[in-house]
């Protein structure tokens, strides 16, 4: 590996431009050999470049770069930030290793081999863009705009996504951040409180934190963690319902070791207890909710005893939590979660969380759900056009209604994939993948492969040669978040109780792109020119886009730079319930559409004998599957051990640290191995692993085959009926040791 270059070897191969070799050991231009200083001099003396907005995850902390001789040495939190401050997480710190990853895409590539087993030939941008333009034009000519499917993810994908959706006119866009992640949460809350909840719980100032599966500590977003830690330091009680003793459970006052899939029943029982015992906020319910009678009638079957039996937890503990919440209401933080695409019954669970918040009167109050009042900056993008519903796969023309009426923006993934594979109601023959890796974000890998196999043309744009890029005909190298203008991050001070302030921080490049990497505006505009949309191009460059957006708030790039990368202005008090705020405890639109109007528990498939339910979650050093080739992050947690209950392991003859592979109930094998983590901190009916490991791309020399790819094992698809989003936790696995498949005892 290039990273293990000794200093001597480095001196011999100093021209190796892509290697991540520290520049403090510079070679003299005259002699070619100079004794390098033995002590690293530290980056604190290096030039500070402002304007970085992190995108190692999507929380978007504000950064500065420490730059030495044109090379980014280190990333730090911008000291001016009122959000993350000088703090950034492991991933944020490791952005340097994404920037200089030797495996990063450098040039446009054409696949002269097969899809899935590519042979890459370097081509010019001109040739690559012509091929993309041709490929997509052929598809639209034959099949119309609807013949193109788009899988976007991240800030850079927004502009091209809008191009394909609005200008070209395809409905067939599936964003993983919605359909495999938080879309259910957002639409469930829209159906409950009229808006998406984000994770806007005032944890820093709360008295009780209530988490369902939320595992802060393993799931890291800096200012969110700051709020969480502050809340705990202030003495807030923490309740964590999780089948596993997660990072949050380890800090909890009450750990609810709940049976997977039954969370909604748990919340219903808490709510029913509050209602039956008159421990809910009657004033709030009277003034700010609708449908209380239908709601309380619908949930009344959920006695403590019934939920205790369903969730396999003590009735007394449910009561204890309900009492704790009631005693501290309204200053309680019912966390809406983030990745909530769990079981295919998730819309109802998210609705239940919104309703629980309402019963406790915990909206817009200290320690409750409180949306901060941030500044509004206008965006610039492609003009909207109405493309009707004729080719909308989520529209049932016979019934004249949507199939999944509460879908997040875009078209539910399975509708697109089924249409592509069956050719019905129409063929989908062109595919644009931009920053998403659907091989590892969307369940059902074999299905995804079929989708790609039947395409006439596939193009991918990414920074790394991820698993999906193997399926591209043309693969384009993108400038990373450290090398381009882009997203304008806005927000407020992290602690809502502090002086009210707002900030505006546009992403500005910390270093120039290397090799032939280009940004999304360049690439999209070049496609648009080739597809006959030159006249509609809204903006010529990312810099211009940023400048125009900033002008909407009387700012400019020059001004922001003069203000050290972040504009700060007085803010507004976020507390105080808007008069017209209303919570639909019972939602009639839902009932009209044939769904339960009040939150309802829908049981999930039971674990077959000999198997355990596969659960997954986040590693603190990784973001989804995006960071697995980052050598610093990889080194921090090289594989994803599979957690198994200690009693189950003992019966199976498994020892902590044993190497195993995994096979699911449909016979799909992990292919790669990991180790077992034997612990009392997980129930017997499930196993757990971190998501975002086990890349199958041979071009990812660090992440390839490192650990097990949980997504590969998620082949049974559950679809959330209201939203069309994926549920991914109804898959069951066994472990394989030394070639022997081991039953997991119940």
């Amino acid at each position, binding site marked *: *590996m290039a*990273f*293990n*270059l*000794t*200093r*001597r070897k*480095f001196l011999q191969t100093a021209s190796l431009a892509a290697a991540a070799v*520290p520049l*403090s*050991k510079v070679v003299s231009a005259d002699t070619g050999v100079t004794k390098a200083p*033995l*002590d*690293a*001099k*530290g*980056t*604190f003396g290096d030039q500070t470049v402002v304007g970085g907005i992190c995108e190692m995850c999507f929380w978007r902390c504000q950064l500065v770069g420490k730059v030495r001789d044109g090379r980014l*040495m*280190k*990333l*730090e*939190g911008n000291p001016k930030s009122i959000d*993350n401050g*000088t*703090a*950034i*997480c*492991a991933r*944020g*710190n*490791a952005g*340097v290793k994404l920037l200089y990853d030797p495996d990063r895409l450098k040039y446009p590539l054409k696949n002269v081999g097969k899809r899935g087993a590519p042979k890459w030939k370097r081509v010019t941008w001109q040739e690559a863009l012509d091929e993309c333009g041709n490929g997509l034009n052929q598809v639209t000519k034959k099949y119309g705009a609807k013949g193109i499917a788009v899988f976007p993810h991240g800030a850079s994908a927004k502009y091209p996504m809008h191009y394909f959706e609005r200008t070209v006119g395809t409905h067939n866009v599936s964003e993983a951040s919605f359909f495999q992640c938080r879309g259910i949460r957002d639409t469930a809350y829209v159906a409950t409180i009229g808006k998406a909840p984000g994770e806007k719980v005032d944890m820093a100032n709360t008295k009780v934190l209530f988490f369902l599966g939320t595992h802060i*500590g*393993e799931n*890291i977003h*800096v200012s969110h*963690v*700051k709020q*969480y*830690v502050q809340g*705990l*330091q202030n003495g807030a009680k923490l309740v964590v319902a999780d089948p596993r*003793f997660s*990072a949050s*459970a*380890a*800090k909890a006052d009450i750990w609810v070791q709940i049976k997977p899939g039954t969370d909604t029943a748990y919340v219903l029982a808490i709510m029913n207890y509050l209602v039956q015992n008159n421990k809910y906020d009657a004033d709030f319910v009277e003034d700010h909710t609708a449908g209380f009678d239908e709601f309380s009638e619908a949930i009344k079957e959920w006695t403590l005893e019934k939920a205790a039996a369903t969730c396999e937890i003590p009735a007394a503990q449910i009561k204890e939590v309900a009492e704790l919440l009631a005693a501290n209401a309204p200053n309680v933080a019912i966390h809406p979660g983030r990745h909530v695409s769990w079981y295919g019954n998730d819309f109802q669970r998210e609705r239940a969380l919104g309703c629980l918040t309402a019963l406790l009167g915990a909206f817009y109050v200290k320690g409750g759900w409180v949306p901060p009042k941030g500044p509004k900056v206008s965006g610039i993008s492609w003009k909207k056009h109405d493309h009707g519903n004729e080719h909308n796969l989520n529209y049932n023309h016979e019934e004249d209604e949507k199939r999944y009426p509460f879908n997040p923006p875009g078209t539910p993934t399975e509708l697109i994939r089924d249409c592509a594979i069956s050719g019905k109601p129409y063929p989908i023959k062109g595919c644009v993948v931009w920053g998403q890796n659907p091989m590892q974000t969307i369940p059902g890998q074999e299905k995804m492969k079929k989708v790609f196999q039947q395409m006439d043309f596939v193009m991918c744009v990414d920074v790394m040669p991820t698993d999906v890029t193997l399926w591209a005909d043309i693969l384009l190298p993108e400038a990373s978040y450290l090398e381009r203008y882009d997203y304008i991050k806005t927000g407020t001070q992290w602690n809502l109780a502090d002086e009210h302030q707002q900030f505006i921080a546009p992403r500005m490049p910390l270093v120039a792109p290397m090799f032939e990497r280009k940004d999304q505006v360049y690439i999209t505009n070049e496609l648009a020119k080739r597809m006959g949309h030159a006249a509609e191009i809204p903006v010529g460059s990312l810099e211009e886009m940023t400048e125009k957006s900033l002008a909407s708030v009387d700012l400019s790039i020059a001004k922001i730079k003069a203000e050290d990368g972040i504009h700060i202005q007085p803010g507004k008090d976020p507390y105080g319930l808007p008069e017209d705020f209303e919570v639909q405890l019972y939602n009639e639109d839902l009932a009209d559409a044939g769904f339960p109007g009040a939150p309802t528990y829908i049981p999930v498939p039971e674990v077959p004998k000999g198997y355990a339910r596969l659960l997954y979650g986040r590693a*603190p*050093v990784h973001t989804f599957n995006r960071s697995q080739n980052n*050598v*610093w*992050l990889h*080194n*921090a*947690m090289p594989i994803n051990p599979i957690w198994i209950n200690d009693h189950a392991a003992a019966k199976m003859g498994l020892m902590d640290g044993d190497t195993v592979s995994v096979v699911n109930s449909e016979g799909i094998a992990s292919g790669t191995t990991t180790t077992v983590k034997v*612990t*009392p*901190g*997980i129930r017997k009916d499930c196993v757990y692993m971190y998501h975002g490991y086990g890349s199958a791309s041979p071009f990812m020399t660090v992440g390839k085959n490192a650990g097990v790819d949980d997504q590969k094992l998620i082949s049974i698809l559950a679809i959330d009926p209201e939203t069309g989003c994926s549920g991914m936790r109804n898959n069951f696995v066994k472990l394989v040791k030394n070639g022997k498949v081991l039953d997991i005892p119940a």
Partner: protein
Amino acid sequence: MQYGMIIDLERCVGCHACTIACKAEWEVPVANGRNWVNRLGPTMTPEGLASTYYPGLCNHCDAPLCVEACPADQVEMTFTDAKSGKTKTLTVAATWKDPFDGTVQIDKERCLGCGACADACPYGARYVNPDLADDNSMGKADKCTYCKPRVEAGLDPACVQTCIAGARIFGDLDDPNSAVSKYVKKGARGIEPHGGHLGPNSRYYGNKRDISLLFSTSTPELADLGMTRRRAMLATLVKPSINKARDIGLLGLAGAMLVKKMSEEK
């Protein structure tokens, strides 16, 4: 003055930011670390089910074994107190404990790269940095300096600056009013090896069950100093061909371990 660091495990969320920031700041090779985060548990402790972290780093011990182990020629070195300007001259090998700020530092120019100090450290806080290999060595000893150059420039250590949970607190343990001293009064303590009296100055604070888990899993054994001294001696004898000396030392070490293992098995 004695610099020290507190890790507050009530705050720590185990995010590993400290380890990566350090790597960037000091160009630490990928495979090495000046600090680390070991994830502990979930394990049953006498205080209940626990899961926490061991964010480790050099302890800048009161009686550092690594300093004693250094076989490099001793030289006179004059130290200056950054605050008072006072000076003190000590006779030191290639690694020493600073008489003014209490940190343990290395002179890489004089380091033989033999690794004796790394072997002597029970915490595994030192490594031989292969990026610094030259004709006479496989590298130079390297470790956490408590970010001395940053601290002298008025900054926090890199790990402290980036800590997202405010879980790392740095300061003077000799100053009773410092934040670190207040933590010590509240019960923060260092991890002393079994049978050792090193006086570690990186100290841990947390609830009972987390501290129980940390100390039960992460208290190290003292190194076999006989072996370490043997290797160090070899290194000084054969300085010009230090690589060979290292190999011999390793062979000896391997042999000794084999004998030890065999005798244990018996």
